[in-house]
Structure formats: structure tokens, C-alpha cells
């Protein structure tokens, strides 16, 4: 066995066992490999749930303690921009799901198109997020040394607060808006970080998909990335109502 030339041996091997080239040596079958990587992705998402879980716990506690501050804080966020972002992300999840379908049915140009659309929609989300962040910076709503309480102590001076009909808050409660914005930036920041990582991987995938990598029968990578992308989407589906829509029922 060791004497035979490696290439000839490899060719003979694949002719006999029909091992596709993308099957790793330590798996018995392709089904086992797909099963294992898929399961691994779900467990990874479980760790992500725990990661964001810490933030959601903090949110839950402080929202109960400082409800008025959280409501006033949420009035500073733009629902049209947040809503548009939600729409962008849900659409990107749809294009991603279509991408997985295209890969499974071996439609190369369809896959590339779907991935590019997902890529653009993801970038669009980040762009709008940047607009929102810059508003916060201008109004000194970023926690830290430059944090300003003016919008909450004197709502008449602030368009967003005035439009929402906020009443001036006591200094003590107004200061707790900083906790709201701390959580806002921590949660959306961590989410945006996941988006950036996802978009980077998407860029790599577009490059590979154009070379026909995922449309030759081995779609595990696209499928697992799809899971990740949907997960990041779902995190936003929770963040949007928690951060933007508090008190909208009133």
C-alpha cells in the first residue's frame, strides 16, 4: 500500500468507496460528517444564547428597577430607523434562506446573487446603525464622561422627548437613563459585532461561491452559516421591541 503512488492510490480509493473529496478522513460517511458539523453549529449557537443571555438578564433587572428611565431612554431612539433595520434584517434572512436553497439545488448564479443581496442588506443594517449611533454621540447620550441628562431633565429642549410627551424627570431617575444607554450600546454593539463577523464571512463565501464551491453537492458550510445568520437576526428581533418599543402600548 505504501509503495503505490499516492495519486493512483487516491483515484483507486475513490473509485471503490466513492468518497467525495470534501469528506474528512475521520468520518465514516458523509451523513455522519454533515450531522456532526450541523450539531456543532447548534451547540455553538447555544453558547451564543448564553452570551447574550447575560445582557438580557441585566436588561430585565434594570428595566424593572428604573422603568421610567427606560421609557424616557427609548423615546430617544428612532422607531422608523429601527423598523427599517428590522425589515432589512428579516429580508436578509430570506435571501440567506434562498441562498441555502440555491446551493442545495445547485444553482450557482442564484447562490451568488443571494449571498451578494444578503451582504448588501447586512451592510445596509450597519449603515443605518451608524446613523443612529452618530445621533447618540451628538446628543451626548453615550455613557461615560460626556453623558448629558438634558433631554430628560428638560424634555422641552429636546425634539424627540417633546414629541413623545415626556415630563421632566427627577434628577435621581434621570441619571438612570445612563444605565439604559449602557445596555443599549452593549447589546446593539455586541449584535453589530456579530453582524460584522457575519458580513466578513459572507464576503469570503461570495468569493468561493463564484468559483463554484458550494454548488457541487457539499452545502454544509452555507447551511451552517445560514444558521448563524438567522441567529443574529433573531437576536435583533428581541432587541428591537425591548429597546425601541417599551411603553408603545400606553
Amino acid at each position, binding site marked *: 500500500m505504501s509503495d503505490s503512488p499516492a495519486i493512483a492510490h487516491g483515484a483507486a480509493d475513490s473509485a471503490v468507496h466513492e468518497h467525495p473529496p470534501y469528506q*474528512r*478522513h*475521520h468520518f*465514516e460517511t458523509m451523513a*455522519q460528517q454533515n*450531522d*456532526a*458539523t450541523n*450539531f*456543532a453549529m447548534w*451547540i*455553538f449557537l*447555544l*453558547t*451564543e444564547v*448564553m*452570551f*447574550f*443571555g*447575560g*445582557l438580557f*438578564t*441585566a436588561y430585565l*433587572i*434594570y428595566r424593572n*428597577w*428604573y422603568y421610567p*428611565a427606560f421609557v424616557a431612554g427609548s423615546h430617544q431612539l428612532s422607531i422608523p430607523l429601527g423598523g427599517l433595520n428590522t425589515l432589512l434584517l428579516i429580508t436578509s434572512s430570506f435571501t440567506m434562506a434562498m441562498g441555502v436553497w440555491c446551493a442545495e439545488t445547485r444553482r450557482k448564479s442564484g447562490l451568488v446573487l443571494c449571498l451578494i443581496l444578503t451582504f448588501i442588506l447586512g451592510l445596509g443594517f450597519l449603515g443605518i446603525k451608524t446613523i443612529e449611533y452618530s445621533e447618540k454621540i451628538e446628543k451626548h447620550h*453615550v*455613557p*461615560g*464622561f460626556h453623558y448629558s441628562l438634558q433631554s430628560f431633565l428638560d424634555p422641552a429642549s429636546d425634539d424627540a422627548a417633546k414629541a413623545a410627551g415626556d415630563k421632566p424627570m427627577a434628577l435621581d431617575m434621570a*441619571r*438612570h437613563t*445612563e*444605565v439604559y*444607554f*449602557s*445596555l443599549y*450600546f*452593549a447589546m446593539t454593539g*455586541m449584535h453589530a459585532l456579530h453582524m460584522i463577523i457575519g458580513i466578513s464571512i459572507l464576503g469570503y463565501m461570495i468569493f468561493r461561491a463564484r468559483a463554484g464551491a458550494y454548488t457541487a453537492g457539499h452545502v454544509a458550510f452555507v447551511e451552517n452559516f445560514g444558521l448563524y445568520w438567522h441567529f443574529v437576526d433573531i437576536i435583533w428581533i428581541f432587541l428591537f421591541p425591548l429597546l425601541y418599543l417599551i411603553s408603545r402600548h400606553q
Partner: protein
Amino acid sequence: MSDTIVSLPDQRTARIPKTNYLSKENGLLSWLLTGDHKRIAILYLISITCFFFVGGALAGLIRLELLTPQSDLMATDTYNKVFTMHGVVMIFLFLVPSVPATLGNFFIPMMIGAKDLALPKVNLLSWYLYIVGGILVLYTMISGGVDTGWTFTTPLSTHYVNTNVLSTGLAVFVAGFSSIFTGLNFIVTIHKMRAPGMTWFRMPLFVWAHYAASILMVLGTPVLAIAIVLVALERTIGIGVFDPTKGGDPLLFQHLFWFYSHPAVYIMILPGMGVISETISTFSRKRVFGYTAVAFSSVAIAVFGFFVWAHHMFIMGISNYSVLIFSLLTMLVAVPSAIKIFNWTFTLYKGSITFETPMLYTFGFMGLFTIGGLTGVFLGTSGTDIHLTETYFIVAHFHFVMVGGMLMAFLAGIHFWWPKMTGRMYPEKISQLAAVVTFIGFNLTFFPQFILGTLGMPRRYASYPPEFQILNVFSTAGATVLGVGYLLPVLYLTWSLKYGEIAGDNPWQATGLEWQTQSPPLTENFAEPPIMDHEAYDYDWLEGQKEKEVASVG
């Protein structure tokens, strides 16, 4: 030699198999880019040993400082940095990865009859993450250290200290992901890669213990990660999640931190318990008594372990009702731990016990872990905890569990599987001596600390009242003996790599699948994919195999 089960091949004719995982490829790159779980385990073994001795040197400095009541060897703030770095290095760079990343990595695939872990590249990535974490810790040390204690307590860590909290935090964050990926890999491997016939209840208990520990790694570590991210954000840009002046609550940090860091002690001890199950069965020549109970007690420890974290916070201002409930839950964890100890003891009953080095370490584990575990019940009881907390009683308690328990188990495992990993035996007599020296040194170091704690000596101070000096001198003397006990294995194990006796396939006559292949193993682990047709720890099956072999050769 009737008092030993060791059966080695004839040394005059025996050879290390020419083809094995060590000889398959050569060169540094073949190691640094390897996907082989066995090679990654060796990489881990070398790196965690280095960090163990870094942490050990820091421990030596601590004990030297405490030789006298005044702070004379180093300034008090230096002392704070030294014990912090000792904790960070030992916990995140030694104890957490110790058994899982080395022995677990090496033997889980072999025990379940697989060729490799399910995700070899992720496995290699986790080693690189570990190294990055380690380098960041070393950088922290060189650039001035950190003095918050390994617990990063807020608001101390966010507002009041000027030391390198950020680089240490980043190191823990990165090393945490290394641990997450190891745990994830184990879970997937155990679920999806078992050989035909290897049902869940035919798996060695070592694998069960790692499965339970992996659940803790996967679910606990991300919470530590987010807690550290929030500390870092609070320190850099000044967000207010833990800052009481802005309405944040430092207790929330404690909850998030201990939600990981209490389960983390089970991440550390469970794999060690897995080792003990293997050694105690092999050196008693009996199936582990109550196999199912021991298997489920691992899972029970993992589950209960998630609901006891607030016992670290009894004096931090949580409500009396929380104290009551967490105290009760804490005592519940003692039940599965006791199930294990009792079942191991019953395994010994009427077994044919031999006293090779791994077994000596195993006995050390059982005694010291029992003391460590029982003193844990003192600390879980709120009344005694309020008296004993922040004293040396705590220090003695967790060192009994972590050093007396975990490190003994680690050394038991290293000696037990050394012939399989390297193909050569360690020298028996000197290693027995090392085991005894370790045991004596350990007790001399840490038992006086129980007494110091009950007398009220506080932890984390460089100076102490002069009446405590005698016991501290005992402790420092013991630490010296302990240091010798840890240096010896490094020396003779290194020696044995070249001069040790050839071990053969199965020097212990053990039943695990890993022993039914050549040592050191092939890169693919087995020449033929194994089929599991018997229960775990079935010594009759092993006898049958031997007879079959004799019959076919004769």
C-alpha cells in the same frame, strides 16, 4: 512480582512500533498545523506544564512572603499582584484545561473508538486561543501585573485600580473561548462519533465525566465572557451597568461572574473524577461499582452545579431567602459527589488491589477530595460561612479540592496513560516516592491553613498577627516539599521518554478500547475500526481476548 499487574513485553525483543502518531510526520510545522487530537493533546500537555510551573513559582513567592508576619519580601501591593497572577494562571491556564485538553483530547476519541474528534481544526484553534490567552497573561505579568484578585471584583476592577485589568480580562476571554471550543468538540464527538456497539452505557466513565464537564463549559463560559466584556466597557468608555453611582449594581457582576465561576470548579474536578474511575477499576481488577450511578452523578453534578453560585455571595448583601435556598442547593451537590466516593470505595471492596503509582495518586485524591468536599459543606452553611469566609479556611478548602483533588487526579492520569501516550513506562519506584512526597507535602502545606482559618487569619494580606507564624512556617515548609513532589515527575517522565521500558499495548491489562491498540497509537488510532461487543470494565472479556490470542498464536 505477584503484587503487581504490570505485564511488559520481553525487553530484549520489544520495539516501539515504527509507524505511530509521533513518527508519522516530522518537523515543527507538522506539529503546529496538525489536526491529530493526540498531537494537539501533547501540545497542550507541554504548554499547561509550563504555565503550571509559572503559577507554582508565584505560589512559592506567596508562601515565602508569609514565612514572616511582616510584609518584608515584597511590598503589599506586589503581594496583591502575585496572588492575583497565581490565581489567574492556575485557574484559567492550568486547572480548566488540565485534564480535558490533554488526557480528554487524547483519549476520548480512542475510548469511543473514533479516529479523531469531530472537529479537528476547531481543536487546533482552541490550542492557539489558549496560547494567545497565555501570552496575554505573560504580557500582563511583565508589564506590571494586575491586583484585583482573579475574581475581577467591581467596582475595584472598573474604577479603583490602575493595573492591567484589560489585558488580563482579554486573556481570560480568549482562554474562555478555547475552553468553549474544547467542550463543544467533546459533546459533538461523544454524540456523533461513537463506534458501532458503543452505546451510552458502554462508554468508560471518563467519557461520561467529560461529557458533563463539557456541558458546563459550553453553557457557563459565555456568561463569564459577557461579564468581562461589560467590565472592559465600563473601564474604558464608562458605561454604567455595574457602577452604583449611575444606578448599576455591582452585585449583578457577582451573579454573572459566579454563574460561570462556580460551575467552573466542576469543569475542573469532573474530568479528574473521570480519571479516578478508570484507575480505580484497573488497579482493583473490578468493574466500577454502580456504573450507572457514577455516570449519572457526573451529570447531576453538572446540573446542580448551575444552581449554587450565590453561595459565594452570602456576605455580599443578597437576601436572607436567597441565602437559605442557595445553602440548601449547595448541600445537594454533596450528594452526587458522595455517590462517587462511595462507589469507588465499594469498587475497592474485594478487589485485587495493587499499588502502582496511579493508584497511589488515586488514594491521595479520594482522601483529600473527601476532606475538601466536606469542608465545602461547612462553607455552604450560611452560619459557619459568615464566620469562615475571607479566611484561610476558604483557601485551604479550595486547595484541598483543586490541588489535593484535581492535581492528584491529573498526575494519576498522566502516569496511568503515559505508556499509551509515549510507548514507554515511567520508572515505578521513584514515581511512587513522588506520589508519597506530594501527599505529605500537600497535607503539611494546607492542613495548617484550616486551623489558621478557624483562628481567623484573613486571606489576601501580606502580613498577619505574629501568633499565626508557627502554622505559617509549617505551611511554607510543606510547600517546599510539595514543590519537590511536582518537580520529580517532570524529571523522570522526561527521562523515561528515552530510557523507559517499552510498555507494549496494554501494560496494565486494562479494558478500555484505547488499550487494545498499539502504543503509541497510529494516527488513525486503530488499524481496524473497532466494534464494541462488551460492557465497559469487563475483565472477563479481556481474559477471553488473551486466550483467543494464545490459541491463534499457538
